[in-house]
């Protein structure tokens, strides 16, 4: 296991969202989500860090080709999320509250099938410079 290395690729997207649980009454939504519940949406510059961990392929010297990783993230995540309204424009959030936690899980589930089973995947998502989440937990 001496040659297991983590490779990180950083991407970003700008999107609108609001936090709202339609199963709860409006005053409860307001209490739980505060200004994040405001009806006309707000937005963030999301920073996405995709971490891929595995053994170095001795043929290439890579764990994963970062260009291929970047293309995957851009094609399957950024193109769907960037300059969109996460609640309204992204199918996965039609019935799922777009918290940073849930966005990270959705991104993980989108990308996981495109990576070899020998590679571990972890998503870190910054919603603001001070609020960020990781999935799966390390």
């Amino acid at each position, binding site marked *: 296991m001496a040659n297991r290395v983590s490779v990180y690729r950083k991407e970003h997207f700008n999107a*609108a969202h609001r936090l709202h649980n339609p199963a709860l009454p409006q005053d409860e939504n307001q209490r739980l989500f505060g200004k994040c519940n405001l009806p006309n949406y707000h937005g963030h510059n999301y920073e996405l860090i995709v971490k891929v961990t595995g053994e170095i392929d001795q043929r290439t010297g890579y764990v994963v080709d970062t260009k291929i990783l970047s293309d995957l993230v851009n094609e399957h995540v950024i193109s769907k999320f960037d300059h969109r309204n996460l609640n309204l424009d992204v199918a996965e959030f039609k019935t799922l509250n777009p918290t940073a936690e849930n966005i990270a899980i959705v991104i993980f589930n989108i990308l996981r099938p495109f990576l070899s089973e020998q590679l571990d995947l972890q998503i870190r998502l910054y919603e603001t410079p001070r609020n960020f989440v990781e999935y799966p937990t390390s």
Partner: protein
Amino acid sequence: MAIFYLTRKEHFNAAHKLYNPAWSREKNEEVFGKCANDNWHGHNFDLYVTVKGEPNPETGFIVDAKLLSSIIKTYVVDVLDHRNLNLDVPFMKDKLCSIENLVFGIWNELMPHIPAGVSLHCIKLVETPSIFIEYYGE
């Protein structure tokens, strides 16, 4: 007497879109691209407000930075944070929601509340890590 420039940094998260209602959807998409997305997108905006003046001999500073912060919060951040800039902000009503118009509006909102002894010098608004705008009241 020496003149000093003091900058206070604040931030807000908001949704917006670039859209000219006088144009067709096609023309809006041609000019504004993905920024014209119907359902909005959003940013973490960083706001830098710079005032200039001479130090008060009794305090040594040109302005109380905490007072400047509370003025910016009251008249700008509380109005913009977690809002939709196109829909929720009175001073952006019927204006194209570019950062040029936004920074101009912020200047006009702050101007009447700048403390005695300093003058408003510059407002810088950072929309993304790679796009920002400055306005000097010209």
